[in-house]
């Protein structure tokens, strides 16, 4: 038996045993993780590969992957989103703190806040990563907190490493969730960290995209929401703008895409089997409302992937072009307003005598409709239909609100279902 005064030697001996080498398996796992994470502060604008409708029955729509770089990390680097799998109830630890409840174990997005000494921020995002929350105010500027609950049920945030907050800084905040769990409201609280004290309070939307490679909110509840990445107005360099589009949905809807160029909504019953990766040969079918920013007239040669020379990008330019397109049968345009802005709606159908094809590897007959460089390429199959609303945002900016259905017979009915949502769209200026 060792005696107490030998403790130095005892501890040294005690610590002698045990591994001193990191295995190759761990090294490989780290490499894999690092390879998936882009940390460059000068990362370019986020471009989502595509957000187009799925193909069903007789291959009707083509979506071409352009650019092919989904810089999801510009919003949140490898967020661990989606329903948690551990259903055990929170258990208080020795320090009286409890594990964060499952309904909070998500990533959350919100508008930027003015925080001391951090410059101009463009977002207020909480990314759930490895049981920590990373609050990001703009690319490369963030702080990490270990979240838990106090015995009173308040949110407890602790800092474990240097950064905008100091190690061992602690903050306590009251919080609440909306009935459906999609909106987190954090009230002002007490915090050792001044930046966190300014950053945390506010309202956040749950980011629970089913497809981890995309950014979206996932299932919604009946209430108002704001886009986070979608930018309806042309920009030289994309930047997060929370609330660039706002809308109201009834119960039973889901957000399937929120990228700089496309915002997508679909009924939850369709979202359940649709992973948001929307392309002509992706599995799954769905009814959807898709909002495209800055659409341009696509050239008739689907393989050319360009805009028609001489056709403007204004809403009326596009209406005129659609109604005169030899491959499209268009309904009479109807004037309306969306978000107080002038809009024009029409239904377009692929002409029966159109013979052009898309996708040389697996060609099918389709009429190219909208193309945007490095983003999306929409086409319409012969005999298939879209309901399109072109909204004039002013200054030459346009959005196209596309409504389409898995079963073309359902289009008119789904348009009526979608109409209140479309009428709720607003596009606040920058």
């Amino acid at each position, binding site marked *: 038996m060792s005696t107490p005064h030998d*403790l130095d030697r005892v501890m040294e001996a005690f610590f002698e045993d045990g*591994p001193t080498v990191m295995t190759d398996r761990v090294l490989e796992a780290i490499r894999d993780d690092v*390879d998936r994470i882009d*940390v460059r502060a000068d990362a370019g604008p986020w471009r989502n590969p595509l957000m187009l409708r799925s193909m069903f029955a007789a291959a009707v729509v083509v979506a071409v992957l352009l650019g092919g770089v989904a810089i999801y990390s510009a919003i949140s680097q490898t967020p661990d989103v989606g329903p948690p799998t551990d259903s055990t109830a929170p258990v208080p630890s020795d320090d009286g703190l409890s594990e964060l409840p499952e309904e909070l174990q998500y990533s959350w997005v919100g508008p930027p806040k003015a925080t001391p000494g951090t410059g101009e921020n463009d977002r207020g995002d909480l990314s759930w990563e490895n049981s*920590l929350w990373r609050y990001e105010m703009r690319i490369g500027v963030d702080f990490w907190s*270990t979240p838990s609950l106090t015995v009173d049920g308040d949110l407890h945030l602790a800092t474990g490493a240097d950064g905008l907050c100091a190690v061992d800084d602690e903050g306590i905040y009251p919080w609440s969730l909306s009935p459906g769990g999609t909106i987190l409201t954090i009230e002002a609280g007490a915090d050792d960290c001044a930046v966190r004290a300014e950053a945390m309070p506010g309202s956040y939307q749950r980011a629970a995209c089913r497809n981890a490679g995309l950014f979206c909110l996932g299932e919604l509840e009946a209430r108002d929401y704001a886009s986070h990445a979608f930018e309806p107005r042309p920009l030289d360099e994309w930047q997060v703008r929370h609330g660039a589009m706002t809308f109201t949905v009834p119960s039973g809807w889901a957000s399937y895409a929120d990228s700089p160029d496309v915002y997508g909504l679909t009924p939850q019953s369709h979202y359940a089997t649709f992973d948001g990766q929307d392309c002509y040969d992706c599995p799954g079918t769905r009814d959807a409302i898709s909002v495209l920013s800055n659409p341009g007239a696509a050239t008739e040669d689907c393989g050319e992937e360009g805009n028609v020379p001489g056709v403007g990008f204004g809403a009326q330019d596009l209406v005129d072009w659609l109604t005169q397109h030899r491959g499209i049968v268009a309904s009479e345009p109807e004037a309306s307003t969306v978000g107080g802005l002038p809009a024009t709606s029409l239904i377009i159908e692929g002409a029966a005598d159109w013979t052009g094809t898309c996708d040389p590897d697996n060609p099918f007959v389709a009429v190219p409709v909208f193309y945007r460089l490095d983003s999306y390429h929409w086409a319409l199959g012969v005999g298939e239909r879209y309901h399109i609303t072109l909204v004039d945002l002013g200054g030459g900016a346009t959005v196209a609100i596309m409504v389409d259905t898995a079963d073309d017979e359902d289009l008119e009915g789904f348009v009526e279902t979608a109409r209140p949502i479309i009428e709720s769209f607003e596009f606040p200026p920058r």
Partner: protein
Amino acid sequence: MLTPVVDRARHGDREAFGTLTQAAGDRCMAIAFRILRDVSLAEDAVQTAFVTAWRELSGLRDPSRFEPWLHRILVRCCYAEAKRRRRASASILAVSREDTYAADQILTVHDRDQLERGFRRLPPEQRAVLVFHYYLGYTHVEVADHLDLPLGTVKSRLRYASGALRAALEADARGPANSKERPA
């Protein structure tokens, strides 16, 4: 010198970060295991620590301070793992370590077991201070630097942890209850 490599990694050079991972990985694994007393948890903590370091590296102001900075992240990850384990399984404390440790001349197998139990009862914050002081051989000031703690906190945690371990060993020395567990 790793400083130029750190600087390259700070600017997003994955190869440079891979070099750092290989250079610092073994020591991180050794530290993590000695705090957590569990290989699997230690590996998880090390992996999380390096991934976190990759994400946060651009915020490291002084590349020459990479090691203490990384150690702080690692210890934070160990705390998180320890917390997770406490919730997952309280019974792990009863697991005998006889099969994993070789006997030596300072500690009998039974002493080790008692020490193991006493060590596992310590909060991870105190375990970390013990590991940095006794295993890495850091002075109190160096421990304070690597764990970013006030010097007084390091001293008090060491004093408390050492006292708790001494008490565990003394109690065992006084009591005959476990004598039949002793090796022949």
